[in-house]
């Protein structure tokens, strides 16, 4: 989807959060972990941020993540997974494209089981004159059980006219066709569910730094088996 909205009237400049981690021009920062609470990053020209949020059950009640793209050519890759078994989990992501020529990519997948509730609130703000912005956002949620609830609110606020932005959000259940395909190969119903959940979270796993991927994959498997 290509968004073309020009409306300078509603654009409000807000300051970069005081405690934000600055990624200096041309530098790269990689972060991977639960990232509980408030996290803010500000990227100078040509800087890049690779962030991977891993919220396993009971480790985090939520994250509020803010990323400011301050200089041309900055790139933010934001990904993450959340697995909720009980209680509430909220993820609020705000990406502000303050100048043009930056790229932001968001991919957040969550599994919500039992009586848990999740809320994803994702905002992309593209400032006036931040032309040639590329900003993408995806949030997929997998519900297990009838009591689980997932809320997703993708929002685009675009004040420039030459940008490429997209967002996609889904809330769904395990795929019956996939389930049956696996069972027809002798994989038990329970094991097929495990494989489907691993499959669902796998796009996020690709964003985990290579040195930690095996460990995180094992953690994912152990977690989804317990659901």
């Amino acid at each position, binding site marked *: 989807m290509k968004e073309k909205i020009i409306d300078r009237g509603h654009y409000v400049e807000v300051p970069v959060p005081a405690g934000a981690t600055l990624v200096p021009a041309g530098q790269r920062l990689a972060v991977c972990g639960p990232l509980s609470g408030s996290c803010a990053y500000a990227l100078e020209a040509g800087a890049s941020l690779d962030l991977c949020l891993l919220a396993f059950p009971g480790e985090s009640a939520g994250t509020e993540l803010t990323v400011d793209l301050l200089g041309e050519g900055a790139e933010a890759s934001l990904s993450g997974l959340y697995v909720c078994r009980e209680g509430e989990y909220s993820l609020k992501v705000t990406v502000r494209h303050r100048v043009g020529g930056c790229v932001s990519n968001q991919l957040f997948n969550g599994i919500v089981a039992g009586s848990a509730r999740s809320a994803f609130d994702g905002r992309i703000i593209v400032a006036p004159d931040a032309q040639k912005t590329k900003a993408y956002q995806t949030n997929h949620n997998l519900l297990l059980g009838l009591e689980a609830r997932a809320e997703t609110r993708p929002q685009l606020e675009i004040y420039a006219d030459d940008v490429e932005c997209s967002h996609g959000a889904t809330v769904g259940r395990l*795929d*019956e*066709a*996939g389930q*049956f*395909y*696996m*069972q*027809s*190969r*002798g*994989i*038990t*119903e329970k*094991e097929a569910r495990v*494989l*489907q959940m*691993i*499959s*669902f*979270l*796998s*796009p996020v*796993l690709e964003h985990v730094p290579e040195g930690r991927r095996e460990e995180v994959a094992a953690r994912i498997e152990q977690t989804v088996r317990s659901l």
Partner: protein
Amino acid sequence: MNENDILLEIRGLHASIGGREILKGIDMVIRKGEVHAVMGPNGAGKSTLSAVLVGRPDYVVTAGTVTFLGQDLLALSPEERSWAGIFLSFQYPIEIPGVSITNFMKAAINARRKAQGLDELSPSAFIKLMKEKMALVQMKGEFAKREVNVGFSGGEKKRNEIFQMAMLDPTLSILDETDSGLDVDALRIVAEGVNALRSPEKGAIVITHYQRLLEYIVPDVVHVLKDGRIVETGGRELVDFIDRNGYDGFKA
């Protein structure tokens, strides 16, 4: 011929989906060593027959029995049917992103071994088995690492089905329109894979609309399915008859 030769016995099978009756009384006996072709026009119920035999949950059997090697097949779950030795090559194989062929097959093989009270296959024995069966359908080494059916061409998907069939070594294989969307080379690879698995103890049902696949996999018995019923059963000469005359001459 005696009772012990019978692999699969279908009697008076009726099945429906969403309240609509598709199979209206199917009778079929498959003996060990036999390959049966089920041919028929679109909408005859060919795929429904295969779906019912492997226990797809959206189909409801309303009457009839299916006995496989003496046991009541319809009482078994899809995975139990697989463990018992039934395999379906899907017309439209499903993609499973993030799950490699290796992990998928490991899960399948070990689930069956567990159900049979056996230990998991050793990693070296598993790799050896994978290599052997990949060679059968001319799949190269990297195939094992690919995600199940993700980004596969039509031919690769069907070869992957035959590969899985070879891995699971079923007693009764059901090929549902395995020829659809295949070019001649892929068709030959698939057919050679299937033929290599033929044995006097096993059987197969080849479901197809066209005679093309049956030039490569020669059936012992041919059934014509039309409007949910088998309207004709004969030898391989029936394939040529259909090729020349189509299905219009058969009365449902």
